[in-house]
């Protein structure tokens, strides 16, 4: 069984929901990333989304854009990002790691090469923001050969017909983008998200998680009431921005936020 399926199965057995933090590889300096990843797992993260730095992060809000820029100051590449996963795997064989980013660095590397390196490093899934399934056919084949999952986004603007198609194309889990807008946008109406989410659930049997707009323990817990997991991005990346010259503080503060979210989510789902 894949690490991702295993992870969701265990969570279900414990009646818990997945906490999925997002960090950008190499932000603000390359040697922090693996430390932060371990710390997040220690404090209760279930899966990790590792952002691959890209010079034109089109779908990101200001907080995450700047994180990409910080990583690129150190020229952190797709190859470096994959190496960080390999380093992480030295001491963690179970926590799923998915790479999230944009297609161009993979186009440059070549699909086969990417899939092979990612597999060898212990990457579990790929989520490319600017690749809908129509544009991802060949990459999907290369990834499937290496048993790497391909995760697609479902948006609030997605029609039912298309949602069914996206659900059928996704493996591992499905990522529901909770709001129209870039990452870190401020307004989110949780009741609306819940209604739409429950409607979409009919199209799939694999887990569906919610991302965009989850900022703190309260919002993570609210999402845990109905979704299979909460993705937290900008709220975590903001800690990197606030402490970019103090890597040790980043590790501790991110750990503290994860811990707060874990506690809040567990109160809801178990209680």
């Amino acid at each position, binding site marked *: 069984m894949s690490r991702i399926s295993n992870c969701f199965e265990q969570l279900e057995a414990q009646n818990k929901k997945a906490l999925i933090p997002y960090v950008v590889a190499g932000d603000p300096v390359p040697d922090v990333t693996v430390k932060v990843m371990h710390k997040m797992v220690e404090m209760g993260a279930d899966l990790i989304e590792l952002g691959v730095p890209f010079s034109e992060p089109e779908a990101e809000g200001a907080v995450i854009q700047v994180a990409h820029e910080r990583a690129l100051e150190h020229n952190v590449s797709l190859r470096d990002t994959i190496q960080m996963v390999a380093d992480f795997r030295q001491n963690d064989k179970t926590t799923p790691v998915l790479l999230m980013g944009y297609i161009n660095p993979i186009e440059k590397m070549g699909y086969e090469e990417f899939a092979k390196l990612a597999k060898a490093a212990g990457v579990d899934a790929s989520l490319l923001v600017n690749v*809908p399934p129509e544009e991802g056919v060949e990459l999907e084949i290369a990834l499937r050969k290496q048993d790497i999952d391909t995760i697609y986004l479902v948006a609030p603007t997605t029609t039912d017909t298309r949602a069914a198609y996206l659900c059928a194309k996704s493996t591992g889990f499905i990522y529901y983008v909770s709001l129209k807008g870039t990452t870190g946008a401020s307004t989110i109406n949780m009741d609306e998200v819940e209604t739409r989410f429950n409607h979409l659930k009919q199209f799939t049997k694999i887990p569906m998680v919610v991302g965009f707009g989850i900022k703190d323990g309260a919002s993570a817990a609210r999402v845990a009431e109905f979704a299979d997991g909460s993705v937290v991005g900008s709220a975590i990346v903001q800690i990197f921005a606030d402490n970019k010259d103090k890597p040790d503080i980043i590790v501790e503060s991110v750990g503290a936020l994860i811990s707060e979210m874990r506690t809040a989510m567990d109160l809801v789902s178990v209680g």
Partner: protein
Amino acid sequence: MGKPIGDNTEVSTMPTVDGRYGIYGGRYVSEVLIAALDELRDSYSRLKSDPDFVAEIERDLRNYVGRESPLYFAERLTREMGGARILLKREDLNHTGAHKINNCIGQALLAKYMGKPRVIAETGAGQHGVASATVAARFGLKCRVYMGSDDIARQSLNVYRMKLLGAEVVPVTTGSRTLKDALSEAMRDWVANVDDTYYIIGTVAGPHPYPMIVRDFQSVIGKETKKQCLADYNQLPDAIVACVGGGSNAMGIFHPFLQDEEVRLIGVEPAGKGIETGMHAAPLSKGQVGVLHGNKTYLMQDENGQILPTHSISAGLDYPGVGPEHSWLKDIKRAEYVSVTDEQALHAFRQLNLLEGILPALETAHALSYGAELASKMGKDEIVVINLSGRGDKDIPTMAKIDGISIS
């Protein structure tokens, strides 16, 4: 009258239904935008043969933009170069001073017919921003224009002009603070406001159907050129030369000639300080295939697939990508792509002022430079058409600075 927009089925079968030009193009966007792109594709597909829509565009092109634009024989420039007859397609005489308005009229009407009260646009030199702000005023739409903060500094006249037109100009301070960053920011706005907002892309790039829509609206340039050249000289041009940033003026004049294989089509990219210096913006001359801003195309990128900073004296050409149809035309060798340095463009800029009394945009000066040189090597009975895509009033501060003259 009444012929569907962009009806050139006899000259091109591209794009395919999924928005491909060979391997180029496509729709590489976040899922949030898919519904909007579907809506746009379907609306355009319906409206381009709607007689009311077509008539409204034709009326505005005539009475508001001032079409058709002249095909002017540049007699003194021709004599100076001593070769082929040089004709200038005078898009600089359009309302707002460039070809950009052709596309903006079409897209603003699309927005109106689609019931979108708000439009957004990105701009480099400010020409597309001005054209967008203009049509927004003309049709009573709210308008916001994204512009890199570096470009705002070098194109202050156009910035103020957009404000006079009632548009909000938003400086973009991320990345290299130029056109590519403005485009990314406009896409972010669209993602967030997709219900009530129409995104007027200014060039033949972006996700499908944009490269097709912009090409169709700009192809009026090539259709007129063909008609005028046949009427006045009883022959087709031997070569057509146009500058290429994203490539909309070039695609507009090339497209109706794609099947006239005896007509050479030449796109001129900005070589900046010289291709060999790396300080240029010429992905077709020295780039590699990749994906940016919704489409697969030639890009300026490094070995890790990061987009490289670009350089050109003209803000309107300062872009690391190019429209996907140009990439395809390059590969199938139907069009040729060359490059011209800042210095060569500056020479052509001055030359046209002195010989013809025409102030060209710095973007256009790239095409003029190559076109004039080309003409000098051709026979006197041959014809070179240069697309005079825009006028250079906006570039006067830049030129004055180069000449060490202070103007206030």
